[in-house]
């Protein structure tokens, strides 16, 4: 689909931001720095929505990618997963460098919003689980 989006993105000046996944062995997935590089080479208007949870589950380094490609990243999706294709888990118990990513964005003043994408169900209502995760991000940023 990437190549078909190019003329529309140019015409309307609206950036497609490709969401990263964890399926690193699937050549059709956007899951590794290499697959992202190929995609970004298609158009100067293409961007990345770096899902730091999925990226970590695919054993990629989210902090390094964020630092090295910040000019092409529109926003990050925040969730917590375990490495080696591990599951979504309660925030703070997984391998995702949530703190590392958020503090890098804060301290280096990157204009990159942090958008939580709740995939861990938890035990409370969706509203309360979302509130808890927002509070988790806020605590990191104010610490």
């Amino acid at each position: 689909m990437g190549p078909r989006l190019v003329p529309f993105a140019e015409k309307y000046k609206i950036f497609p931001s490709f969401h990263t996944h964890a399926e690193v062995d699937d050549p059709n997935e956007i899951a590794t720095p290499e697959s992202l590089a190929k995609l970004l080479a298609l158009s100067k208007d293409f961007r990345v929505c770096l899902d730091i949870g999925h990226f970590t589950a695919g054993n990629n380094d989210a902090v390094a990618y964020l630092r090295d490609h910040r000019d092409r990243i529109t926003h990050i999706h925040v969730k917590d997963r375990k490495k080696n294709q591990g599951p979504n888990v309660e925030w703070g118990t997984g391998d995702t460098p949530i703190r590392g990513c958020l503090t890098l964005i804060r301290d280096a003043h990157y204009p990159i919003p942090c958008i939580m994408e709740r995939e861990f169900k938890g035990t409370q209502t969706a509203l309360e689980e979302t509130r808890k995760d927002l509070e988790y991000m806020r605590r990191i940023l104010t610490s």
Partner: protein
Amino acid sequence: MTQSRREFGKLFVSGLSFAALSNHARAAAIDSTVRGVRLGITTGSLNPLPEVPGRDKLDVLIEQCTQLGVGTVELASGFFGPPVLGTIGGKAPKVLTPEYLRSRVAQREWRLSPASFDEVRKVRDKFASAGINIFSISNTFADDVTDAEMDAMFRQMQALNIKLFQTN
């Protein structure tokens, strides 16, 4: 912009968000920025939304965002138009079922109709009235999408005043 813990979720006018709102629907924007970092949610984070008899799901969603003090959202495209049945991650299933094909035709017709633009503008104004910025939408393009449909989808995003969309 530095913001203290106590200030999180406080309502005030944000110049950047304010400029993006339509003239007739401006409201004080909710700013969920903390220490210069803009925080937000994908609207899917709030799924399943509670069923409230007589109330539109979108209104329930906006109310919950307001309760959370969230001023930035990535809106799921499922809030627009008829649902497509049997998709996998927003994409067409490997085996195209009759229900998928029927619902895709209905979606395509809707996207190409003037009614779709009316609905998009209505959604935009509801969020603007609540002071919530639609930062992005989640918009996955099925392999069977036509060029005319793609053009309509981009025009709808233009009507939403967004500068980017997240796609799979």
